[in-house]
């Protein structure tokens, strides 16, 4: 039981962060606006949660210009994918146990 709890990752303990990771697991990359629309989040909200995941090195940020518009896109890192996979497995185990 203790082991399972260890794998429940605090970094994913929020709807927006969980959402960002879910999307980046199945898409090579996603830009800020796509994430915003899929998650129904505000700019500030999404930015701060993305920042949190970035500082854990679970996602990588790439900023570039498309024409004159700045475009921020996000990718899940190897570390992030592994951590998220463990998190999902832990969730599943917990549900089976209870």
């Amino acid at each position, binding site marked *: 039981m203790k082991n399972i709890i260890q794998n429940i990752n605090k970094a994913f303990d929020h709807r927006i962060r969980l959402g960002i990771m879910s999307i980046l697991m*199945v898409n090579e990359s996603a830009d800020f606006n796509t994430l915003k629309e899929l998650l129904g989040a505000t700019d500030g909200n999404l930015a701060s949660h993305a920042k949190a995941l970035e500082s854990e090195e679970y996602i990588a940020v790439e900023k570039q210009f498309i024409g004159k518009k700045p475009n921020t896109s996000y990718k899940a890192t190897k570390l992030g994918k592994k951590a998220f996979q463990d998190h999902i497995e832990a969730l599943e185990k*917990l*549900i089976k146990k209870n």
Partner: protein
Amino acid sequence: MENEKYLNDLSEIKNLMNRSSRFLSLSGLSGILAGTYALIGAWLAYKTIYFDTSTMGAYKNLVISEEAVIRLLVIATSVALLSLLTGILLSIQKAKKNNETIWNSTARRLVINFLIPLATGGFFILFLIEKEMLGLIAPLTLIFYGLACLNASKYTIGGVRYLGLTFIVLGLLCTWFLGYGLLFWAIGFGVCHILYGSIMYFKYERN
């Protein structure tokens, strides 16, 4: 209590993985309508080609006047355009109902991956027409459309995969039974579209 939160998390994860990678606003109803247009088109084409029903299947002896060819082209183009328009309109409607934008990255991916095999087939068939090799057109349209559906199915609702496989089988059969092109077209673009459209409609949309 905790358990419920974990279950919620998991279903949220699944939902987002689906919504972010697949175009889910494809409308089953548009498949039904496209199939209906195709059947009407096939009937009109039949009337144009076979004045005398005894020539059914005897494509080698079939002589089609230039006027008839133009009529056939008009019928085929109208059916294709009408189907496309219906598909787009109904998908926009479905997207609105689900509070999603229609032209997002999943839609782009779907359209691009659908068009690559389809355009390949389109050019291939145009070149065949140019070289006056007309016999294989019917099976080739079925096969390439099937491949296009199969390729696109990775980016949308699952049923499209089986629609694609059905078209490929029909295309191969149509190559074997050469001369029954119109019949296979009616089965594929007509009956199969209606069938798969209905399955999708009753499975995903009926509420």
